[in-house]
């Protein structure tokens, strides 16, 4: 694998509008239940000062994807650019990947009895476009980035946030810019 694409989410910019969620649903005409991308609210008491902040998460295209390891039908493949693709044509709906992913990102589509997840809009990326969620994010809180050492060495780049599973399990390809204490964006 020559590189690893992933997401960078900036909680300081995110207003929790869920535009990314809707853009994803719209792009793929996803049925009601599966949520390939989802916006979460951080627990206020996880920080020293009260704060109302959000983060947005889809499949993290992990460096060590548990979904890919456990799937018996090889429905998952990891591309040269690090994108983990799920092929619904191969899926037999055993649901093992839904048990193995700590982020609950592969989700069963009850109508099709198969699993679905974010494929990082690889077809858009192959045409030089950005993923639908990134394009839809009005404050620019969600970016497509290359995960590498130089990104990780930048000040303020976090590998995890409070309330997330340990990144040691699958090495997710997502980085965060956490909320700055004291500043608040309320959305009640």
């Amino acid at each position: 694998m020559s590189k690893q694409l992933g997401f960078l989410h900036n909680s300081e910019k995110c207003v929790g509008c869920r535009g990314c969620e809707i853009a994803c649903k719209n792009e793929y005409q996803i049925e009601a239940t599966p949520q390939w991308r989802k916006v979460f609210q951080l627990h206020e008491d996880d920080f020293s000062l009260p704060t109302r902040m959000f983060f947005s998460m889809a499949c993290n295209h992990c460096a060590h994807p548990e979904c890919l390891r456990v799937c018996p039908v090889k429905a998952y493949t990891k591309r040269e650019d690090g994108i983990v693709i799920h092929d619904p044509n191969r899926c037999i709906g055993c649901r093992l990947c839904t048990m193995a992913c700590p982020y609950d990102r592969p989700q069963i589509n009850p109508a099709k009895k198969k699993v679905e997840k974010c494929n990082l809009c690889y077809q858009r990326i192959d045409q030089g476009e950005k993923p639908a969620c990134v394009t839809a994010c009005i404050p620019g809180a969600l970016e497509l980035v290359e995960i590498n050492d130089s990104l990780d060495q930048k000040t303020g780049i976090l590998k995890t946030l409070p309330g997330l599973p340990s990144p040691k399990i699958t090495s997710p390809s997502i980085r965060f810019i956490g909320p700055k204490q004291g500043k608040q964006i309320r959305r009640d």
Partner: protein
Amino acid sequence: MGDWEWPLILFTVLGQIAIGIILMLWWLARNRNLNIQLFKRGVHVSGGLLLIALLASLFHLGHPEAAYRALAHLGSSWLSREILFFLLTFLAWIYLFRLSRQQTSSHTLGSGASIITTAETAAGGQPTSNLSLGLGITSLLGLLGIASSAMIYVLPRVPAWNNGGPVLFFLLTTGLLGALCTLVLGGNLLQTAQKKLLLQVSLGCTIFSLILSVIYGSMLSASMEGAASLNYHLSSPLFWVRALVSWLAPLLLLVIILKSPDLGKKNLILTVTLLVGLGEILGRALFYLSATGIQITALF
């Protein structure tokens, strides 16, 4: 928390009973004194159970018609390996079935009409080694299948499963129910020493299962998710029914049976088997129901 996974409960428990029976037959055959009627009965019952188990497993899939594809990822998926080993076990069982068909009941050796040995005359005049080898290979493949089944659940995401617990518990079910079901199938066809041995295996597995469960339970509190699994068990009435019917009652009854001069009445052994069977089904249901994975705890 998980769901009532009936197809998986049936697949794992019935598959383990089937392989447990074959394993016990193999054990009994090692001294060349396996009763041929028992061999036949055991092979037929285990085959039936294996078939039901394999069919039940299909109901877990969203697309059972494409189940054959599950063999595609032997390199890293324990589910693929499980399917492979169970299919191989079934093929090996077909060989046992053929041996059992070749066998006529005229091979009576020993002191009584019901005591038939496998020596030379067994398996339709084939050497005993064929039968023993068949049982051995089927058992070994079956045990590999069971270990692979257990390894499916060894997931870093689920702390309660991410240890040796699933493999040990699955193998204990195999030994315990295998021995008890062989006792039930054997009845008077078993020699006293064989009966005693099977009862001792059952008692040993029950004691080991109880001790292991206590150690395992105390280890679960090390993580938040493990503690949630433990709490689920302790607060569920199903767990206490399971403790009663598959640990306490069998312990008591097996000791009574072992102490009685005639090694217990048939009905008593059948009662223990049914109680343990129910307990193992409840235990397996709780295994799935209590599964708590590491997950995003932020609000949504």
